[in-house]
Each structure stands twice: as structure tokens, then as C-alpha cells.
């Protein structure tokens, strides 16, 4: 077994960018592979639901091209997970086409593995009926109707599908939704390095340079994983890691800073030791991995809530501000009554959602806001109408605008105009929600993640499915 495996993580996410100078420095350190994740749930359910990407396609293409060229120059694997933000099949195919285009224009040839993460609805219903889908906490209600309503449901793959692709000789792996850490843990685990160190190094690498003391811009991160420890260092010589900065990275976007659950077990950082290894690098040891009794795959799903229209306005009149809750309640009643009239009760108030935010009062924190008494001299209001079609949402937003403009208050007699609107209402199109926080117990780590091998470039396109 080799003494160490060197890993280059280019950025926190493909499309966020990295410095070419950092990338070149990192390549000079002869990494055994390059990894990068391509997505997350963090930008919200719309990306999984609509198949759009959160980063502009040109920004993704720039990062992807540099990584492909660098990986081929060193003849090392490039591993990308969570393609196209949500990691569904449409987003994976978008990334596949981008790889094809770059390979053609830059004359690259390689073996590409595509790993799908979108879940078949029949398969999920079968697992559900067998009791093989279990809720995490907190979890929304999930049943076969949820599956039917979903635009896309993806499984978050573990390290095993990546290992299978590497063993199939893949030079480039583009995967659908994957655990960010699995992208970086797969090859060290395949080569026999301790799983606790592999997963912990992966956890730090998956965010690129986020774990340095002061990040300037999204950038590269580098790790040397060895048999009894690993060392992390940012390729940019101006960036510095400290034991505290690395230790505190396990807090980021995790509910529990000591136990990180993966498909095959739990990374346990309770006993991890962090020591300085020179001015800019940190040595980590004693991280443990506790294998799970059952292999589980977490699901992510997005369904369409409806179509939305929004109106933004503000209020400066202190009479209205001091009765704002009552004003809103009266406005709601007026809108509902007017909608009844316009649609002759074909659309009832249960058919649409009218959500009003009051900035200057509790717009940011909603029910969590502890401050109840306000002294704002002006308030900003957003009115959001969500309905079955864009036409209905837009109609109701138009009704709302007119009712809000002229809602009377007892302090003034005569026609008032009580809302300052910088522009007319806007149609937002479809809006989505996350609808599942559950895990599947599959028969094996691969059945939810089919792989296709494609020969790109010189050797022409041969296609083999596994």
C-alpha cells in the first residue's frame, strides 16, 4: 500500500470559481485525483425542482474546463458530484453535454462515468410499501402521494458508486446528487486508508478553502492523507489554516459537529486531534468511523407548490404603522371577498396562499422574532400570492394591489392611497418545496445509482451500461 494519497479540491462548488494560480500550485504537488462538488440543497428547492443551476452555466463551464484539462495533463481522475446543483437526471445530462463540448473543443479523450441519482418512482413506492423508507428528524409526511407530486427525487450517493466507477477505469466521473464528502473519501477508502481519516479529510476538502482563517475568495484546498493522520493546506501561500480553523469547519452547515452521518456509517470527531504542521498547515489524527448496521441513502425531493406573483410596497403613515396587524387582517378579508366576486366562488380562499411579510417588524425572523414592539418609521411589505396557475396568481395579486392601495383607516376620511409601490406586481413562475427528509434502506449501495461508461474523444463513443 502506498504511503499517502494527495487530494486536490478545487472549490466549494463547481461554478463558484478558484484562482488559476492556486490550481497550478496544487497540480505541482502531484495530486492523485481532483474532486469538486457541483451542488447542494443550500440554494433552495427551486433548483432540484426546475432543473435550473444556481451558478451561471458559463461559470460552471469555466471551472469544469480548467479541471478537465488539469486532470488529463496529470492523467489523474476528476470526480464531480451533485451535478448541476440538484443532481437530478436533467442536470446530470446538462453537465454531460458540457463535458462533451469541452472535450471536443480542447481535444481531450478519456473514459467518462456518469452516475445517476434520480430515483425511479416505482422503485421508491416499492421500498415504501416494504417499510424500507424511514424518517429522519424533523421529517415532513411522506407517502406514495408525495412521490407522485414530486418533480424530482434524488438519492444522496455514498462512496461506493464512485469506487465502482474508479474500478471501471473512469478518468472522469460526473455523478448526480452525492454526499459532498463521498466525492473525496471514495479513492482513499478504495486504496485502504483508514475510513475515519478519509471521511474527515473529505469533510474539510468539500468546501474548498472555506476552512482557512480568512478566505479571500472561493479557492483550492489540498490534503495529504496518510496511515495515521492527514495534513491540510491551502495552495494559495497567502491562506493559512490553524488547528482552530480546521476544527471549527466541522461545525459548518451541520446540526451535530462531532457526528456526521454518511450512507455507510458515522464519522466520529469526538477524539480528533488538531495540531499545527508548519505555518499554514494542520495535522489531524484520531478521527474515527463507526460502520452503520444498515446502509442508508438519504432522499431529497422537490414538488411544485404552485405559481407565484409578488407585490412589494412600503408604508410611511404612522397611523397605518401603529395598526399594521389589524390593517393586514382587514386587507386579507377584502382580498378574499373580492376574489369571491371575481371568480364567482369558483376559487375559494383554500385554493390560494396569500403570504404577507412585514419588514421593519418581523420580516426576517417571522415567528422566531422576540422583539414585539416596533418603533420603525416605515415598513416594507411583500405580498405573495401562490395559486394553481400563474394566471390566477397574477389576477389575485392585481386584486390585492388595488385593495391595499385604498384600504381605508378610521383616522382619515376620504379616499387614501396607503401603499407606496416602486413597481407593479411580478410573476415569479413556479415555486417549489422540499418534501422529504427520509432515508432508503437499499439492498446494496449501487441499485439506486446506475452507471454508464462513455469513451470520450479519440477512441470514439462506445457506450457501456452497468
Amino acid at each position, binding site marked *: 500500500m502506498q504511503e499517502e494519497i494527495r487530494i486536490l479540491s478545487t472549490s466549494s462548488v463547481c461554478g463558484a470559481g478558484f484562482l488559476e494560480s492556486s490550481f497550478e500550485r496544487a497540480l505541482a504537488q502531484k495530486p492523485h485525483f481532483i474532486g469538486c462538488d457541483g451542488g447542494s*440543497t443550500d440554494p433552495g428547492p427551486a433548483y432540484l425542482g426546475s432543473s435550473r443551476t444556481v451558478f451561471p452555466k458559463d461559470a460552471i463551464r469555466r471551472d469544469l474546463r480548467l479541471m478537465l484539462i488539469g486532470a488529463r495533463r496529470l492523467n489523474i481522475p476528476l470526480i464531480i458530484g451533485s451535478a448541476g446543483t440538484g443532481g437530478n437526471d436533467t442536470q446530470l445530462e446538462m453537465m454531460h453535454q458540457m463535458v462533451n463540448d469541452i472535450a471536443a473543443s480542447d481535444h481531450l479523450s478519456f473514459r467518462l462515468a456518469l452516475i445517476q441519482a434520480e430515483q425511479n418512482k416505482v422503485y421508491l413506492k416499492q421500498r415504501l410499501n416494504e417499510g424500507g423508507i424511514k424518517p429522519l428528524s424533523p421529517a415532513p409526511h411522506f407517502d406514495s402521494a408525495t412521490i407522485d407530486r414530486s418533480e424530482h427525487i434524488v438519492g444522496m450517493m455514498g462512496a461506493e458508486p464512485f469506487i465502482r466507477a474508479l474500478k471501471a477505469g473512469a478518468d472522469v466521473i460526473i455523478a448526480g446528487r452525492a454526499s459532498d464528502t463521498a466525492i473525496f473519501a471514495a479513492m482513499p477508502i478504495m486504496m485502504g486508508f483508514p475510513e475515519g481519516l478519509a471521511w474527515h479529510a473529505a469533510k474539510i476538502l468539500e468546501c474548498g478553502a472555506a476552512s482557512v482563517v480568512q478566505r479571500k475568495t472561493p479557492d483550492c484546498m489540498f490534503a495529504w492523507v496518510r496511515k495515521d493522520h492527514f495534513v491540510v493546506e491551502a495552495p494559495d501561500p497567502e491562506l493559512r489554516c490553524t488547528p482552530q480553523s480546521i476544527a471549527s469547519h466541522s461545525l459548518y452547515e451541520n446540526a451535530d459537529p462531532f457526528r456526521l452521518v454518511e450512507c455507510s456509517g458515522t464519522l466520529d470527531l469526538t477524539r480528533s486531534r488538531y495540531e499545527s504542521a508548519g505555518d499554514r498547515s494542520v495535522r489531524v489524527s484520531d478521527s474515527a468511523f463507526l460502520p452503520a448496521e444498515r446502509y442508508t441513502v438519504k432522499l431529497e425531493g422537490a414538488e411544485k407548490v404552485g405559481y407565484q406573483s409578488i407585490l412589494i410596497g412600503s408604508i410611511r403613515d404612522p397611523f397605518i404603522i401603529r395598526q399594521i396587524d389589524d390593517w393586514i387582517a382587514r386587507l386579507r378579508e377584502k382580498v378574499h371577498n373580492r376574489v369571491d366576486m371575481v371568480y364567482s366562488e369558483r376559487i375559494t380562499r383554500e385554493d390560494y396562499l396569500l403570504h404577507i411579510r412585514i419588514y421593519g417588524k418581523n420580516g426576517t425572523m417571522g415567528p422566531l422574532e422576540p422583539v414585539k414592539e416596533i418603533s420603525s418609521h416605515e415598513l416594507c411589505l411583500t405580498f405573495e400570492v401562490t395559486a394553481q396557475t400563474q394566471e390566477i396568481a397574477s389576477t389575485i395579486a392585481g386584486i390585492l394591489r388595488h385593495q391595499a392601495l385604498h384600504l381605508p383607516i378610521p383616522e382619515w376620511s376620504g379616499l387614501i392611497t396607503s401603499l407606496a409601490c416602486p413597481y407593479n406586481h411580478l410573476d415569479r413562475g413556479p415555486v417549489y418545496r422540499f418534501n422529504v*427528509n427520509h432515508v432508503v434502506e437499499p439492498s446494496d449501495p449501487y441499485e439506486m445509482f446506475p452507471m454508464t461508461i462513455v469513451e470520450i474523444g479519440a477512441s470514439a463513443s462506445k457506450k457501456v451500461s452497468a
Partner: protein
Amino acid sequence: MTSLAQLAQLIRSKNAGPFELTFDIMFDDAKTYERVKQSNKVTREIVAKLYNLSANDVKFFFCDAALAIKASIPRPFTQGDPRDSDGHGGQQYAPLMEIQIP
């Protein structure tokens, strides 16, 4: 008495997946971290009270190696839901800033 905002290097909130919010209270030096940890003013119960939850709903951790205190709570609305106001969960920490430390 000093406010937690004056003692911490960083107080932040963030999504921990679409269904949970997490708070990180981070310190520059071990002395300040220990002062806050030993004060008993930053606890599971205090976080529960500030966010109107029962203590059972709050995950709470002292992270000595990171010089950080961490708490996680269920989101009032799932990330991106029509009633959710903070898609990244990034502006939910303000009530923690005013905790007074002896």
C-alpha cells in the same frame, strides 16, 4: 456584564440541511471561550427560551478544539417553503448577541 456579541469572534446562523437551523458561536482565544462556557449563560435552555422552543428540541454542543459553542434547532418553516423568510438561514442569530456574560 458583557454581551456575547462583544466577546465572540463570530456568531452566525446557517441551514443544516433544509429542515434545521444551526448557530455557531466562535471565539478567538481559549480564555474568552472558557469564560463564556463556565458562565452557564449560554446553555441549551437559554437557546430554547430565546427561540420559543422546548429544551428537547435544541441540540447543544461545546466544541473545545474549535473554541466554539454550537446549537441546532428545527426550522420554523422548511427552507424555501412559501412561508420561509430566510432561505440560507443566515439572519436568525441576532437574539443570541444580547446574552449577557458576567
